[in-house]
């Protein structure tokens, strides 16, 4: 049988080499490797061969089969365009239906993942909250002019005797005292991401948006740790060449308070049309005010901490370099927009 196999193989190889159209090659494939092809029928006869020998012959047949198959493929590729079987790779395919997660969901995912790496715990606190958590507990008494910075929505219900009116949280900082009361004994490393509301609407403001708030409280927490955390975030979220800087600012609930900038992703700090002399404003930060620690039930003589709270939408725009001209687009339900991401 061995001779038969070898001669069948040689015969096939010779014929394949001579073939000059794809139809001819297909015929040859059928006549050797098809259901009742010459080589196939030899395979069927294998069981007639006794024990030890069967294995060797089997290997020989398989090798011959592979040799024929690869020569067929090789010969097909050698054929000129006209002799080839017609195939149009440019015709549009049938696309499977694809779903889309919203940009804000992606942003929240990436932000929480980045902070998770350095031990931050994600939480969520009320979006309709007592005035006390949003303002008074954060060192902003009722008539304080600092409140003007937050255009706050008030809910039309009766006030709580201790906690005051219900407001729609204008910032995620209202979660700070909630977190202190939840954890009780530091360490605290919180990342609070939630919806926020402010009475404003234009191309760069929407009445509902998202913020993420970081809060770290432990013994010996310093401005250096805040800088370290912000730099870590900038490197891992924006890109490893990006840096942050602090500038003085003021919030009632932090002391000192800062404005945080990140180097512009386009000019990397050299200064260009997009940025302000190489820097983009990220948002506020600061060392937690001792009064706020006290209000959260934490002894400011033992512990210190820092906090920062920034807009999710704004931060993500600065990462991706998406130039969305109007932030209101993010909240549109137009599929033409949503399917781009």
């Amino acid at each position: 049988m061995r001779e038969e196999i070898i001669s069948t193989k040689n015969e096939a190889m010779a014929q394949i080499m001579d073939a000059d159209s794809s139809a001819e090659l297909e015929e040859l494939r059928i006549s050797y490797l098809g259901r009742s092809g010459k080589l196939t029928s030899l395979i069927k006869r294998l069981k007639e061969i006794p024990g030890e020998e069967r294995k060797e012959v089997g290997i020989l047949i398989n090798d011959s089969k592979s040799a024929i198959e690869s020569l067929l493929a090789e010969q097909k590729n050698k054929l000129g365009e006209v002799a080839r079987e017609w195939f149009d790779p440019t015709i549009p395919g049938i696309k499977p239906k694809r779903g889309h997660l919203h940009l804000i969901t992606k942003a929240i995912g990436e932000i929480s993942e980045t902070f998770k790496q350095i031990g931050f715990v994600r939480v969520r606190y009320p979006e309709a909250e007592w005035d006390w958590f949003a303002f008074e507990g954060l060192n902003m008494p009722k008539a304080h002019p600092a409140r003007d910075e937050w255009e706050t929505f008030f809910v039309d219900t009766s006030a709580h005797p201790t906690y005051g009116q219900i407001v729609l949280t204008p910032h995620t900082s209202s979660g700070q005292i909630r977190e202190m009361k939840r954890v009780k004994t530091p360490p605290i490393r919180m990342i609070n991401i939630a919806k926020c509301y402010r009475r404003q609407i234009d191309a760069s403001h929407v009445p509902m948006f998202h913020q993420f708030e970081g809060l770290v409280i432990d013994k010996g927490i310093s401005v250096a740790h805040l800088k370290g955390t912000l730099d870590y975030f900038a490197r891992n979220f924006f890109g490893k060449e990006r840096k942050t800087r602090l500038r003085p600012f003021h919030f009632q609930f932090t002391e000192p308070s800062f404005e945080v900038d990140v180097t512009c992703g386009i000019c990397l700090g050299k200064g260009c049309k997009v940025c302000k002399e190489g820097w983009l404003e990220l948002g506020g930060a600061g060392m937690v005010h001792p009064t706020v620690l006290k209000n959260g039930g934490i002894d400011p003589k033992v512990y210190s901490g820092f906090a920062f709270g920034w807009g999710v939408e704004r931060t993500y725009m600065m990462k991706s370099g998406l130039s969305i001209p109007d932030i209101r687009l993010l909240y549109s339900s137009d599929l033409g927009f949503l399917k781009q991401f």
Partner: protein
Amino acid sequence: MDIKIPDTWLRDFLKTKATSSEVAKYLSLSGPSVEKIEKSVYFIEVTTNRVDIASVVGVAREAAAILPQFGVKARLQPVKLPLLKFSNKVGYLEAEVNHNLCPRFSAVLIKNVQIGQSPDWMKDRLAAVGVRPINNVVDISNYVMHELGQPVHTFDYDKIRGAKMILMESRKGERLTTLDGKTHTLSGGDIVIEDGEGRLIDLAGIMGGGNSAVDEGTKNVLLFVQTYNPVNIRQTSMSLAQRTEAATLFEKGLDPELVTDGIGRGIELFVKLTGGKAEKEILDIYPNPYKAKKVTTDIDFIASRLGTGVEKEKISQILRSLGFETAWRGKILEVLVPSFRAGDIEIPEDVVEEIARLYGYHNLPSELMPGDLPEPLKDAPFGFEEKVKNILKGYGGVEVYTFSLVALEEAPTGLKLKNPLGKESEYLRTSLMPSLLTAARQNAGEKEPFHLFEMANVYLPKKGDLPDEKMTLGGIVGELNVKSEIFSEDAAHYLPNRHIYLKVKGKILGEFGELSQGYLYYEFDAEALREAYREIESFKPIPKYPAQIEDLTFSFPSRTKIGEVIDYVFSSNKSVAKMELGDIYNENYTFRLWYQHPDKTLTDIEVEKVRNQLTKGLKNKFGAIVKS
């Protein structure tokens, strides 16, 4: 608040060779933020705690401290004042003052004022800061306010009847017409001034009264410079919606010592520009002059907050450059606060901020905190929510974020806002349905079927408490030609019979159905869904023996519930491992059935037995007829 400072005006008080862009850069890094420079005018953001820098002199003083830290020479040129004589009693004005409302009250009579145009240099500077020049008297007030940060008012002296003033709290219901012609009904607690005939002539700190205003015929002016209680001023300014520049300064608590500069500079300009002659004695009622406040801290505290040590000499040098006095006792540092920072510097942390910003935040180290990590949040919902979103995305769903503020008819039981932006966003939503319907309608032109979904809180009112914030999953499927039949309870907004609740252990997880507008809609309580969800089912061994698979077609009488048929098949026969509904055609339902036994391969005879049992059961229970 944002202020504008012309560069030339600043350089009257700041002696430096630094360029304007250097000044802007260094101020921003260590002091107030300079947003931009336009036509040689700095646009500066002043935070609420630093009203002391809301002026030309204030910025100059700050810059004179900051620039040298960056190696740039700079010096403050103090305000030059004429010789002033203060007295708490004068002949030309009798004053009764409530000291709680007005810690310092000063006034001086300037006679024979010639009202006219201001010189060009003054007009140009006022125009550069956004103030329209009017006449020399008004312009001087505005000029002094912008230069020093101290509001200044002028009365027509001859209109103050009886040459007398009583500064007191208003009574509820009193009426006063300010010089802009608006008449206000006061709610009480406003600071007002009454003259000798009991007329209200000034809404103090906010705006002067019309009946005492300077006009073209004015000859004698009373120059008026005070410090007011910030709480009263804010209250009045907010409730009457009179947000004048003076009010935004007074409400932040001004330095009473600044009154000296204000009145001095006012007199100087009046004499120079109006030809008027000032009385020798200035009325000055100032019963409690500023005594320097002391804040104590120590070098270890400062180092622990900064994350690095700073030398004592450096600390002292920085603080002194900002106008503080310092004294060391070993590690302890005593700091005396200048009057212009008294409202802002209270605690050691405030002193740390002063040191840190001048030392330079860029000079501080940057390092991650050591220490233990907090415990993870028990039972955190975030992973589950992400999973649900990814599943829906896998089904071709497109996620939307819609506003949670809706109109009354979209949330008839929802919480109402006191100060909404408009009728269409006056209520907090209690369901995602109205928002998703709007979203679907926005895509009405879409040719292909689509599926939108959102996961967001709805806000369910609770009496005397915060609303229940329920994380809700909603979805809407548009223009799908689905012939699904849905059973169970009817509900509002849904077509009859085409609505179901999904329950687990009697608790409603969500609902699903066809809306009257033709969309399919679903809404789930994400928390309930999460509770019902099991991360990993227990392992089921993969069957060792193959299943026999066949299709069976039945016809059922109309109004048969197919869900019940499927339940019956599984409960009545253990050998049916799986059952799927295939085609539905004219009341004929084709099912694919998998017959399988855990321990053996079922024979044809055994399968036939199961099939017969099944068809018989379906016939008896549902009246089903086998079609094939």
